[in-house]
């Protein structure tokens, strides 16, 4: 399937989550495997069909941006076979995520404050100042509780040895948590018998944890917190999630045009007049948040909201300016950031990363382009990316030119062969690559819901799991001790 790439004697065969090397199921999958076999292929086919109908009936969809402005609404792709994470694996993931999110928040507070980390020479200043998500406009503002990223969705992969590595920090408006919950709801409905033999930890209380965190940020106190989810509207790819979260938390789902700022206070326009807003969980990017401060052509945001935020009259979640911490050019420095602020070694490691600003790194990458992934630092969702192994010489040339034009804008990583798992594809059980996005909530405490969104690359051999690029998903089980 892949060219064998020698690499210091380490195995380059993708790790298989389900089977051990001799093709017997790993111990924690044995019961599930027995059950799948006794269920039989016909029954699985029926179940697979039922899960489609259920997703359709519940309207669980996502939108792929297409040629027309409406986009194409698709049913969320769901695979029947759950992915299992053992209790001890989870302990490591959870502590690693908490450590990382804590450090990244200290980093953001520092960047928009004293900038000690730059003065101490840990991070080159140009890396920060050239980042398009470093927002000078908000320097000196301290957000409620001093926290920037109240919701983080951190992508984790397993390398060929089965080690969990951090692939990406998503700290702006990470999405996918509603699908994590819907996957569980569907799995339980279609395959309740799967659960019988395991003790699976629950994930559906995520919205209540989120609500508690949002309430804790209210300038007028928890008791009077008026909270809104700010959505760009029904054509946004994650609109399903926006409605899901608003509904589960019982708060208003609003668009920018539903709000107005008067004397640095944000109000909702309601049938009973203006109503003060305390916390805005925004699902739009910084660029569009406030035409007075950021992009002046934005019609999605709320004029004056940044001034209201600066005045301490409203909390914005995640805080404006958070994007610089998940800039892919900052990513290689995160282990140093953890050491710098916490004095600890990172619990979860990064994927090795080459910086295109370094001549040595760049030459090495150019020489080995077909085994590299090259990523534009400010893109997400699998856009603006070169997958070396499946690229053409022409495309590689094109990317080299792009890199030379603006080295700050690119990083490269050796292709990591994401771990594989059994999936039910067209009446057969086949192996597909996958990753994991757990969600971290930072309010008065840091909490990680035991689970996450497992994304699957549905095309055989593909390493791209993004739903906008043909990815699917699985229910993710974290086992209790």
């Amino acid at each position, binding site marked *: 399937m892949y060219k064998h790439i020698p690499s210091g004697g380490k195995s380059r065969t993708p790790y298989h989550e389900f089977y051990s090397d001799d093709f017997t199921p790993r111990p924690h999958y044995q019961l599930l495997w027995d059950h799948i076999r006794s269920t039989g292929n016909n029954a699985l086919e029926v179940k697979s069909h039922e899960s489609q109908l259920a997703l359709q009936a519940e309207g669980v969809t996502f939108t792929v941006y297409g040629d027309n402005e409406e986009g194409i609404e698709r049913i969320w792709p769901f695979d029947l076979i759950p992915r299992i994470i053992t209790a001890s694996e989870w302990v490591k993931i959870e502590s690693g995520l908490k450590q990382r999110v804590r450090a990244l928040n200290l980093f953001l507070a520092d960047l928009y404050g004293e900038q000690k980390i730059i003065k101490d020479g840990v991070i080159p200043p140009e890396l920060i100042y050239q980042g398009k998500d470093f927002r000078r406009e908000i320097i000196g503002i301290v957000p409620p509780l001093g926290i920037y990223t109240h919701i983080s969705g951190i992508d984790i992969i397993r390398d060929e040895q089965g080690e969990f590595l951090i692939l990406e920090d998503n700290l702006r408006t990470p999405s996918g948590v509603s699908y994590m919950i819907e996957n569980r709801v569907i799995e*339980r*409905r279609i*395959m*309740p*018998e799967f*659960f*019988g033999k395991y*003790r*699976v*930890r*629950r994930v*559906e*209380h995520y919205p*209540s944890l989120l*609500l*508690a965190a949002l*309430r804790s940020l209210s300038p007028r106190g*928890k*008791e009077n*917190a008026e*909270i809104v989810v700010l959505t760009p509207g029904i054509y946004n790819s994650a609109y399903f999630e926006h409605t899901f979260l608003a*509904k*589960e*938390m*019982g*708060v208003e789902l609003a668009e920018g045009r539903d709000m107005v700022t008067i004397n640095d206070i944000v109000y909702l326009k309601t049938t009973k007049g203006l109503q003060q807003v305390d916390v805005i969980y925004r699902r739009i990017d910084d660029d569009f948040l406030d035409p007075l401060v950021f992009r002046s052509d934005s019609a999605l945001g709320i004029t004056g909201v940044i001034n209201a935020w600066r005045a301490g009259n409203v909390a914005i979640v995640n805080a404006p300016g958070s994007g610089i911490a998940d800039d892919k050019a900052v990513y290689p420095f995160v282990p140093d950031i953890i050491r710098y602020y916490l004095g600890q070694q990172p619990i979860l490691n990064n994927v090795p990363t080459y910086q295109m600003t370094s001549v040595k790194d760049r030459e090495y990458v150019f020489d080995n382009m077909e085994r590299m992934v090259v990523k534009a630092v400010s893109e997400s969702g699998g856009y603006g990316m070169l997958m070396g192994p499946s690229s053409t010489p022409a495309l590689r040339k094109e990317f080299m030119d792009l890199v030379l034009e603006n080295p700050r804008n690119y990083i490269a990583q050796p292709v990591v062969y994401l771990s594989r798992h059994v999936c039910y594809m067209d009446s057969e059980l086949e192996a597909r690559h996958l990753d994991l996005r757990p969600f971290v909530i930072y309010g008065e405490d840091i909490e990680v819901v035991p689970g996450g969104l497992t994304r699957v690359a549905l095309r055989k051999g593909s390493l791209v799991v993004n739903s906008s690029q043909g990815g699917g998903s699985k229910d993710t089980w974290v086992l*209790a001790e």
Partner: protein
Amino acid sequence: MLSRIADSMYWMARYLERAGETARLMEINLLYLVEAEEDMSEEYRWRPILQITSTEPMYRELFGDTGITTPRVVQFISAGRTNTSCIRTCLRLFRENARVARDRISKEMWEAVNEIWMGFNERLKTSLSAERASSLFVELRNQVARFNGLTASTMMRGEAYAFYELGGCLERADMTSRILDVKYHIILPDLSMVGSALDYYQWAALLKSLSGFEAFRRSYHAGFMPADVAEFVVLNREFPRSIAFSVERMTEALEKIGLQDKEATSVAFNWLSAMVDTTARDIFAQGLHEYLEQLLDKIGQCHAALAGDFFQ
């Protein structure tokens, strides 16, 4: 109208409501509690259902002390021979009463009655796996909802309809009180659990059994405070499954029917109305369990008064 017809309209609604609500309870219990993070015995999971449906003595008589298991409870609640309020029996009596009152209900309703009976009679009797059972219960709940919609849109709003309303609302108020009483008992004793994840799932299951989860989240933002849940379920007049809502609709139905010389009914329903004209604080001062017991007693008295004044 004939007393006998009034009686049938009343019971037709009661049995349908009971069947639908029992199916909903079963569905939630089968599905919502399958992830057993905490060790939850089958007994712990299912005994409340037997208590809510008042069928525990019948169950114990049948199975002795050999324990409460999921397949047994599913079978017993669906179509247990010795269970006089199993879902199948409710549906059979629903249809029998509809036959008696055939000329008072619309053609569309009558066809739906038959569809429901034919669609579920045999299937409820077969021994069902937990997953088959849960999809059957979902289907039944949908059929009940469809029937309610047909009734609302095709039935004349005369005296017959008023008795139908009385039956449906009385049953609903009765069921809601039992659900709250039993579930509250299970959830509450451990105050240290308030705010924990387990706590969340227990309250959510309670509210979902009453189709009130999302509505509750919209009305209360402080999480699941026991007093809020009780207030919502008992006193909220906008929540269609609250006790106060049912009582209000029964009062309206009685106005339609007229209460001249119906001393017992007037008195009983005045008491019932007075009971929901209160605050959560007062309910808790008295004790929720004591309050709900008293409420159930009053509901029973209302039923007895109706039977004495109208159905004999």
